[in-house]
């Protein structure tokens, strides 16, 4: 049997630089007759080597640094006999080391406000103990022990929380509808489908703080009156699935899920359902179809899901970020939450800031912050030498907001008014090397693949729009294309059933609205000013600026640039594939993008100064 000791003294000994300390301690303990009560343990290095020999006394957790042989009698007398700490040996913060900026002083964090992402990157997502230690499950405990479902709903209503997954529907209202809907069996569902390209906030949340989602969902289950919750996650998020799974298991062990949660008599369970990663399955009715094991196609919504959703039972679907907002609201109260943000958009929103900024990443900001603050202050602005051209929000069916509108506050209404939307939180920053026709084409191409095909307008309309856009970027645009695009867009919007079709034309409409002249240049002038659509551009050496350094010669994958040192080089337009490698490496701005029609095609030295023949494609 293991012997029991009253106290342990753990000595870590500087890689053996102080072996006498252990024997001195043992001797002193012997002398005082404490050898049977106190155990001296030699531990490995603890990484405090600069602080001299380090000594830890358990169970008190007293921590002494820089312990010398002469300190031993005092430690034994004061701490082990009398139970007091020897102040002068206690660990002290090194006074001032060189200044390292605190997180809140780093620009990336200083304008952020972390409510939903409070634990992400701070705790071990696999450890329920760490979640509980930082205050986790307090909200659920409070709800189950002292609130009625009606009070919970009232608190959510007071908070002004709106859905974080897309449309921004008032969460409290949705809960109330579900609670009041007729029927014994109801469901609460977390939407973790997150299909927007470039968006990963829901993934980060499910991976980094899975218990927050579970806790929110459990509170929601209690409020709407159900025993069953579902989390719908795309299977492309294996780590999210894994962390959620282990979180559910731990929560069961701790009595925080399952029957009689926290001894309150409330039974609640959560199941994870993995989706195959179809964008349309993020749409509420398609998601519920998919949950039922059917093909994920949306259905008409004259009957709300809150009345008849999953298996025709009243169902309350919210985005995972919405759910993770619930515990803090319960802890601090709806009024606290409502004090953050703007008149009609409360709290904070997580965004994935990606694209042409210096600090891309996952951010959480109070509603009402301006796009400029996000892009310049948090994102650090565009890369050197570039300029911001637009910010795309709202996912593939969101819109592009031009740089001239960067002072727009980020809230549901302002974004919608500007022709975009909040969406679930993708935010793609574009610089002057981004072609808006190409961007619209990219999103429409994505949506063409993701349309489920149920409505012919969406299925065919998006496809035709893509054809036109592809033609325009290939130099085959013709007068009248823009008008056809606009009329197709209106039809798709009007006659499609679900949000996918209704919003699919947004990328086209918003780029047409703000960047129409760029479309016109593509069609009328056969030129892509951003230098992206390869069929419409040529690269040309500006002889006055070129110092003949040879960088571009080395960079060209086609071996299509020639010239002697310190003499202006020339690009062979026949060999050139418009990859832009020369443009990127040139330090003197001596390579410029010009319309195809501005260069001659000839194997020896079309340097761009001669008048032009038609380019043969």
């Amino acid at each position, binding site marked *: 049997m293991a012997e029991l000791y009253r106290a342990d003294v753990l000595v*870590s000994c500087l*890689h053996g630089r102080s072996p006498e300390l252990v024997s001195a301690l043992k001797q002193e303990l012997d002398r005082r007759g404490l050898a049977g009560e106190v155990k001296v343990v030699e531990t*490995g*290095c*603890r*990484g*405090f*080597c*600069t602080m001299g020999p380090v000594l830890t006394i358990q169970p008190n*957790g007293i*921590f002494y640094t820089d312990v010398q042989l002469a300190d031993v009698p005092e430690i034994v007398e004061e701490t082990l006999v009398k139970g007091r700490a020897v102040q002068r040996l206690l*660990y002290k*913060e*090194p006074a001032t*080391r*060189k200044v*390292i*900026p*605190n*997180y809140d*002083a*780093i620009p*990336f*964090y200083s304008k*952020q406000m972390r409510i939903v*992402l409070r634990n*992400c*990157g*701070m*705790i071990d*997502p*696999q450890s329920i*103990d760490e979640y*509980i*230690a930082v*205050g986790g499950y*307090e909200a659920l*405990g*409070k709800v189950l*022990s002292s609130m009625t479902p009606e009070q919970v709903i009232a608190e959510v209503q007071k908070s002004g929380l709106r859905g974080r997954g897309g449309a921004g529907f008032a969460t409290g209202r949705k809960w109330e509808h579900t609670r009041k809907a007729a029927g014994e069996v109801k469901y609460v569902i977390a939407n973790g489908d997150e299909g927007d390209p470039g968006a*990963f906030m829901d*993934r*980060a949340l499910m*991976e*980094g703080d899975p218990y927050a989602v579970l806790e929110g969902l459990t509170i929601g289950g209690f409020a709407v009156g159900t025993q069953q919750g579902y989390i719908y996650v795309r299977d492309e*998020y294996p*780590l999210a699935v894994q*962390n959620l799974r282990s979180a559910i298991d731990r929560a069961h*062990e*701790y*009595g*925080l899920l399952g029957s009689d949660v*926290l*001894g309150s008599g409330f039974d609640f369970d959560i199941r994870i359902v993995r989706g195959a990663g179809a964008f349309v399955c993020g749409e509420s009715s398609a998601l519920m179809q998919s949950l039922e094991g059917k093909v994920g196609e949306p259905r008409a919504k004259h009957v709300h899901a809150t009345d008849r959703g999953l298996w025709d039972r009243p169902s309350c679907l919210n985005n995972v970020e919405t759910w993770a907002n619930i515990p803090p609201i319960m802890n601090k109260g709806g009024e606290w939450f409502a004090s953050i943000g703007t008149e009609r958009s409360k709290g904070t929103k997580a965004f994935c800031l990606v694209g042409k900024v210096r*600090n*891309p*990443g*996952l*951010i*959480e900001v109070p509603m009402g912050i301006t796009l400029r603050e996000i892009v310049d202050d948090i994102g650090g602005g565009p890369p050197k030498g570039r300029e911001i051209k637009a910010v795309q929000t709202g996912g593939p069916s969101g819109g592009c907001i031009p740089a001239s509108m960067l002072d727009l506050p980020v809230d549901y209404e302002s974004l919608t008014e500007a022709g975009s939307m909040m969406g679930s939180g993708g935010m793609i920053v574009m610089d002057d090397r981004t072609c808006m026709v190409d961007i619209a084409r990219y999103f429409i191409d994505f949506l063409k693949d993701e349309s489920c095909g149920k409505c012919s307008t969406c299925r065919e309309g998006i496809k035709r729009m893509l054809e036109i856009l592809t033609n325009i970027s290939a130099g085959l645009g013709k007068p009248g294309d823009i008008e056809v695009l606009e009329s197709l867009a209106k039809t798709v919007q009007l006659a499609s059933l679900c949000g996918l079709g209704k919003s699919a034309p947004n990328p086209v409409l918003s780029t047409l609205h703000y960047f129409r002249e760029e479309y016109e240049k593509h069609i009328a002038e056969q030129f892509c000013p951003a230098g992206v659509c390869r069929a419409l551009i040529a690269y040309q050496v500006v002889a006055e600026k070129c110092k003949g350094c040879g960088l571009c010669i080395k960079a060209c994958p086609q071996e299509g640039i020639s010239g002697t040192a310190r003499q202006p080089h020339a690009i062979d337009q026949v060999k050139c594939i418009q990859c832009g490698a020369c443009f990127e490496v040139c330090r003197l701005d001596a390579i410029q993008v010009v319309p195809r029609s501005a260069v001659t095609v000839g194997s020896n030295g079309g340097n761009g100064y001669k008048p032009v023949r038609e380019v043969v494609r």
Partner: protein
Amino acid sequence: MPKIQSLEELRTLRAQLKQDIKARTETSTTITVGMGTCGIAAGAREVMQVFLDELATRAIDAHVVTTGCIGMCSKEPLVDIQQSDGPRITYGNVHPTMVPRIIEEHLIHGNTVQQWVVGQLA
């Protein structure tokens, strides 16, 4: 683990867990590796392995734990080092080859490797 039966029990457990974690952090070194998808994609797994190997070789007793995405995905792999209750120092873009130097200078000599530091959480 017996099931938690009430809010009071939860609070008692929390107080104890806090104490445990405090005791752990106060008296030792915690190395936290960002292991969200962004971290893993940037090579955090390899970095963590080198930390584990290096700590074992040098017989340094530190807790190596993982955490999720803290947002600075472009600076992943991120590694935080916290010694006793001191600040949590974050290193960014940590490559496996940087690990020995971080251990040598930060853990053994007590100097943060300034050039790789992103910031600290007090």
